[in-house]
């Protein structure tokens, strides 16, 4: 499986270099977006000391975490599941289903776009910046818990996208990729800033809370801890099971180009 991932990565880099001008702009865009996020946070904290109980350092950690997960999704998952309904409509899934690897793996990780990995590196830098500038004291246990929750956040985000993409098996005309982008933006800030009903929605229905808020809370020491880690792991496990069940149910409905 690792060898397969390595070859996918090499092939994707070759494809990426075909669009060199876009490559430069994409890189610049990553920097601009990150800077824009930091400036926006700076503007908020120039007017207040606390945002829904979060300090500036904590929200910077959250923004960095959001960027890390977003970069991983952009590099490995989104290139495969964006506009997935087209593959279902045109019967292009046949290839994937016939390969001797789990179809959910090939469909969601079959190709990659290495450029967003820069976002991962920069996001990690922003996390470090948040910890340093916020004067947050972090123990090795906290860091371990954070990394565990970060991994859980990636699983949750992957599962969410798989479930949205799977909707195409039932309604081939439905393209929920844009909806994913829209809801994804809500993770840029702590979910605590929203109305309690929306916070609840973002925790239990569209679990964006586990992508950035929960991991950042652990590192920012503003209410994290074992309960937060447990909740993240539980959310990841449930997401994994739900994504697999939905995918299997969906592929059973798939009838090639005529579906």
């Amino acid at each position: 499986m690792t060898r397969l991932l390595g070859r996918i990565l090499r092939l994707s880099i070759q494809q990426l270099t075909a669009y060199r001008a876009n490559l430069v702009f994409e890189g610049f865009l990553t920097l601009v977006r990150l800077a824009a996020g930091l400036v926006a946070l700076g503007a908020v904290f120039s007017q207040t000391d606390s945002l829904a109980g979060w300090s500036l350092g904590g929200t910077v950690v959250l923004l960095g975490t959001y960027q890390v997960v977003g970069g991983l999704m952009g590099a490995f998952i989104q290139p495969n599941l964006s506009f997935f309904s087209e593959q279902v409509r045109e019967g292009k899934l046949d290839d994937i289903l016939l390969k001797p690897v789990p179809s959910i793996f090939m469909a969601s990780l079959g190709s990659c776009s290495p450029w967003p990995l820069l976002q991962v590196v920069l996001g990690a830098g922003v996390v470090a910046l948040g910890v340093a500038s916020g004067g947050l004291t972090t123990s090795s246990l906290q860091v371990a818990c954070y990394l565990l929750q970060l991994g859980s956040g990636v699983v949750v985000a992957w599962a969410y996208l798989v479930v949205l993409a799977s909707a195409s098996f039932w309604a081939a005309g439905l393209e929920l990729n844009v909806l994913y982008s829209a809801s994804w933006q809500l993770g840029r800030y702590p979910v605590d800033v929203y109305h309690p009903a929306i916070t609840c929605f973002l925790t239990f229905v569209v679990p964006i809370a586990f992508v950035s808020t929960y991991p950042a809370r652990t590192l920012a020491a503003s209410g994290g801890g074992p309960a937060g880690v447990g909740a993240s792991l539980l959310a990841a496990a449930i997401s994994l099971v739900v994504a697999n069940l939905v995918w299997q149910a969906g592929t059973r409905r798939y009838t090639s180009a005529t579906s």
Partner: protein
Amino acid sequence: MRYNLQVLAQYVRQSFLEWNAGRSFTFTLVVQAVVPPLIGLAVWTRALPGQDLITLYYAVLLFARLLTVSYEHHTFSSRIYSGNLIDDLLRPHPVILAPLGVNLAVRLWHVAMGLPLILVVGMLIPVRPELGSLLLASPALLLAAALQFLFTYGLALTAFWTEKAFGVVGIGQTLIFLLGGEAFPAWLAPSALKPAMNLLPFRYMLGFPAEIAAGQVTGSALLVGYGVQLAWVGLMGLAVAAIWRSGVRRYTAVGG
């Protein structure tokens, strides 16, 4: 002129019906368009509770966002890449009429689909805008819509030189988010950014009408704002014409 307007009206009608066929997709675009102003509303009302002007500002910004959406990097750039632009070049009217028609139709759909949300937000906000402020904001809103179309269309034309225009347009959209008044209203911007916001076109593409409606821009500042907005529309129009002339000269369609 009259002929061009008739052609434009036909394009609007045709695109409106075409987008009607993909209503579910249009709805997802509307959701994507309204989320950033709603996030801004949530963040700023949480950061500065009790400041009704911010609520009013973001409510108007929501409407401005729907009325100024532009997707030329999807709708028009793809015609350059696919070679379909050759069809447009052979038609007996300016090429810009087709993307403008699509743009207006898409905006109509956005406003129509976003209207229930605007009404709900309007009912929930504790303060009502003054009729005079709304009237003063209307021309600014129309100019913002024109400016944002010209800006996105101009960036979409980079498809003549690049293999993919998304990166270029993405940078433009991020600047609109940051300096256009979506991330923060201009009057709450960090002081280092205020001169840039006043001078660059981004604020005049989105936030300026909302500032007027919220009563934050009055008197001479209002006149200066209109002037800057008009100047940017003129400059952007000239820039788009120059980019088009230069781009179309190197366009060789598919296989050229």
